């Protein structure tokens, strides 16, 4: 499912909203999430999961072409931890297949 398919699915579901509003709203939600993370803010959505930043310490890397050592500075990377409901729902069919 892509962002435009998500927009279409929501437009079918929220029929009282104009398509253009659904489009704007999805873009707003995604942008709010990106912005929160880029400011170091966590995201917490009960039943879906949480996003936070993890720090990767500075390290020596290598230029794969020349073999030269290069100092790579520390950086933050986004990390997602699925929530309980999402974990359980995603795993459900597999469990059903195993037991049923």
């Amino acid at each position, binding site marked *: 499912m892509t962002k435009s398919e998500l927009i279409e699915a929501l437009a079918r579901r929220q029929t009282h909203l104009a398509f253009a509003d659904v489009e704007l709203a999805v873009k707003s939600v995604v942008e709010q999430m990106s912005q929160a993370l880029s400011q170091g803010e966590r995201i917490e959505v009960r039943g879906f999961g949480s996003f936070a930043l993890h720090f990767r310490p500075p390290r020596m890397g290598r230029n794969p072409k020349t073999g030269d050592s290069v100092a790579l500075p520390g950086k933050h990377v986004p990390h*997602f931890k699925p929530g309980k409901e999402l974990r359980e729902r995603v795993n459900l069919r597999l469990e059903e297949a195993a037991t049923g």
Partner: protein
Amino acid sequence: MALTKADMAERLFLDVGLNKREAKEFVDACFEVVREALERGEQVKLSGFGNFDLREKNQRPGRNPKTGEEIPISARRVVTFRPGQKLKVRVEGYAGPRE
């Protein structure tokens, strides 16, 4: 401080002009549609943000950390998130506490 569904709904009310009830329902529906896709085994790709992928894990040996008892961890399907290039670049620049 963390961004929550209530914060997202508030912005939809202020910026997009949905009323408060619509905004709250919309945010709920948004995460529900993504969950349903993942539940069906479908990958979700949000350009500019990242991809939610599914991985099938085989059964592997595990241990109860309290009792030390060996118990197998059953085969399962899990969700992983791969941030997109755009999000990675935005987040790399964050110079806050190193956690």
